[in-house]
């Protein structure tokens, strides 16, 4: 009774929640006027939102298997879209994407195309069929379609490797934001972040994660869009930035040729003592690099990100939670709609931020002005003090040139409100948004790994007689173990955010993409083929990564396929091996072929029972 009511009341519940969040923002703005310090506002923003998520997590607790694994399969289309969008948009999307565009320009924007186009593959090739299958996890599909524990086990290995690479970066991001907002050391921030993440997922599994992710989406999109619109209006760039920044983009092109895009020599950067990870602008904002190789690099990166999207289990499993196959398809469309709201705004934020900084005619511009004068500016000082920005006067003329201003990519999102002179309440809001983005993705990932281990390894392989209580106990224990492992690795600071994120896509596509789609689209695909494909794909992809990555063997990439794109090698090998081995082995039995036929039509019962 309560359940039905809850679902029907969702628009009201989240409407009230959004209203409450706006009231909180206004209260903070008033408090700022009344003299509350910036530090307190930051703490309140992060603490308040995290408490709300924890309450939602507690209210969604459950003791039922299907509620824990697939949220009872009753998440409405639009809400599942919001939850997927939060699941998808990581700390990297929120904090680092605008910065990536700021420094990488058009070339970097291959990520935007890649991280959205993948959903076309999800909707047309996978999501509706996996929903019809009725699995709890992605390896559940592989294990049932191909049969046998070993196929299931291989899928779990790929899933764990891909998701774990991704999750350390997310916990890292929660740690960074928590440490900055709460003024605590990074190592402590990581564990605070982890506790917040577990509060959302432990008691209610997928059900709790779903309802917190919807809440987190609302916070993160509000936190991203308010500054973009506010800055654009305040500085007079246009009322609706997405449609009105054409002139500014053209102006950036003119400024680039006026200042010259100088790529600093590595030796100069080292000699000047520029802190690691800081960059200067050396690439054109909207210009397209000439030549076939540049176009291939753009396209190959987009390809890896798209195919990787369609293989990442924490995304695919969101579509197991819809009430029907039809709803699963529609839900993919809504997911991408909600993602697009942020992704189309990131280039606008990058443009606004860049023009504010480098246009000498604007009051906020710093390029071309005396360095002594710039050092007096409060925000410049603050970011230089924490080693997020740096000035190196290479030519010694005392004037700041374009290639002499260094900063970290994250600063674009975190500092632009301050640069544009927005009140501090906006910076607090941005911190809460970044925290929401990183937490929601981390939750989805940790749950994907823990569910695969508890359902596919523990229940399906080790102890098929375990009762519900024991299964859920194991699932929760694994959640803590995996979270702690991720936090431990993050606290050692061994990965940079973006490298690791792109790798997760490559690992996933190397091992899972073809076994998943051929499982639906090719009846002839056999168990032996799938197993051989997963092993060969993952092994060849990983071997190639070790071969090209500068910190490992560092060989010259073949055809421009570098460490961000190694999935192309892995997935190709996987496809060839899977097809050849499938054709060499006996075709799947009648029952399996019938199962595939059933998966292909939406009507009728799911292949796996409601509770399994």
């Amino acid at each position: 009774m309560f359940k039905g009511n809850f679902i029907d009341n969702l628009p009201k519940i989240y409407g009230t929640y959004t209203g409450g969040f706006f009231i909180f923002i206004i209260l903070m703005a008033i408090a700022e006027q009344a003299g509350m310090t910036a530090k307190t506002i930051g703490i309140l923003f992060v603490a308040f939102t995290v408490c709300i998520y924890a309450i939602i997590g507690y209210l969604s607790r459950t003791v039922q298997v299907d509620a824990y694994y697939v949220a009872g399969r009753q998440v409405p289309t639009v809400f599942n879209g919001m939850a997927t969008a939060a699941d998808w948009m990581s700390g990297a999307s929120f904090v680092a994407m605008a910065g990536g565009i700021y420094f990488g320009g058009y070339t970097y924007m291959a990520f935007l195309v890649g991280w959205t186009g993948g959903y076309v593959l999800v909707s047309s090739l996978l999501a509706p069929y996996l929903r019809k299958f009725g699995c709890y996890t992605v390896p559940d599909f592989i294990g049932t379609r191909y049969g046998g524990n070993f196929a299931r086990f291989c899928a779990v290995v790929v899933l764990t490797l891909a998701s774990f690479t991704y999750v350390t970066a997310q916990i890292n991001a929660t740690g960074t934001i928590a440490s900055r907002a709460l003024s605590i050391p990074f190592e402590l921030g990581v564990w605070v972040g982890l506790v917040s993440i577990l509060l959302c997922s432990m008691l209610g599994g997928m059900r709790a994660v779903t309802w917190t992710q919807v809440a987190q989406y609302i916070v993160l999109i509000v936190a991203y869009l308010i500054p973009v619109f506010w800055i654009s209006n305040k500085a007079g760039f246009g009322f609706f930035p997405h449609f009105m920044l054409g002139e500014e983009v053209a102006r950036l092109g003119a400024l680039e040729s006026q200042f010259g895009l100088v790529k600093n020599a590595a030796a100069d950067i080292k000699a000047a003592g520029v802190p690691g990870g800081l960059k200067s602008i050396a690439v054109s904002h909207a210009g397209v690099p000439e030549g076939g190789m540049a176009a291939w690099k753009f396209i190959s990166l987009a390809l890896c990100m798209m195919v990787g999207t369609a293989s990442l289990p924490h995304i695919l499993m969101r579509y197991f939670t819809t009430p029907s196959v039809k709803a699963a398809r529609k839900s993919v469309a809504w997911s991408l709609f909600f993602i697009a709201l942020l992704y189309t705004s990131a280039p606008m934020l990058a443009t606004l931020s860049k023009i504010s900084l480098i246009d000498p005619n604007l009051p906020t511009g710093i390029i071309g002005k005396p360095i002594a004068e710039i050092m007096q500016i409060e925000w410049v000082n603050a970011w230089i003090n924490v080693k997020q920005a740096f000035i190196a006067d290479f030519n010694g003329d005392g004037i700041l040139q374009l290639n002499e201003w260094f900063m970290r990519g994250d600063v674009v999102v975190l500092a632009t409100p301050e640069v544009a002179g927005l009140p501090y309440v906006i910076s607090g809001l941005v911190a809460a948004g970044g925290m929401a983005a990183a937490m929601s993705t981390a939750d989805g990932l940790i749950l994907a790994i823990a569910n695969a281990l508890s359902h596919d390894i523990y229940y399906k392989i080790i102890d098929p007689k375990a009762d519900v209580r024991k299964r859920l106990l194991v699932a929760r224990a694994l959640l803590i173990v995996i979270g702690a492992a991720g936090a431990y690795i993050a606290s050692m600071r061994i990965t940079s955010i973006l490298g690791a994120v792109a790798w997760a896509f490559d690992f996933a596509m190397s091992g899972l993409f073809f076994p998943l789609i051929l499982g639906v689209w090719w009846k002839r695909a056999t168990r032996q083929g799938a197993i051989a494909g997963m092993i060969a794909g993952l092994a060849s992809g990983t071997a190639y990564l070790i071969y090209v990555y500068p910190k490992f063997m560092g060989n010259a990439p073949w055809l421009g396929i570098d460490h961000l794109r190694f999935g192309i090698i892995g997935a190709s090998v996987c496809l060839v091996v899977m097809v050849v081995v499938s054709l060499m082995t006996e075709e799947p039995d009648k029952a399996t072929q019938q199962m595939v036929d059933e998966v292909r039509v939406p009507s009728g019962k799911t292949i796996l029972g409601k509770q399994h």
Partner: protein
Amino acid sequence: MSNKEKHWEKTKGLMIITLIIWFVFGYLIFMFGSDLNTSSFMGYPLAYYMCAQGSIIAFVVLIFWFANRQEKIDEEFGFTEKEDD
């Protein structure tokens, strides 16, 4: 051909059309990025616009269109889910 086979033929056809459109907006236009950039749209250089907004919007519209078409195909062959499923 059985009803199921016909349904699957049509489904495959829709999948292929969807992926062709996806290929055009995801890859084909970016093979000619520098040529595209010589023209402009709403004041933005065209290739820049396509990756900042154009292709993303195209993907959103494409998936909504695909979902509606597939629903029609399911209806045509009587494979629509019952509400109480």
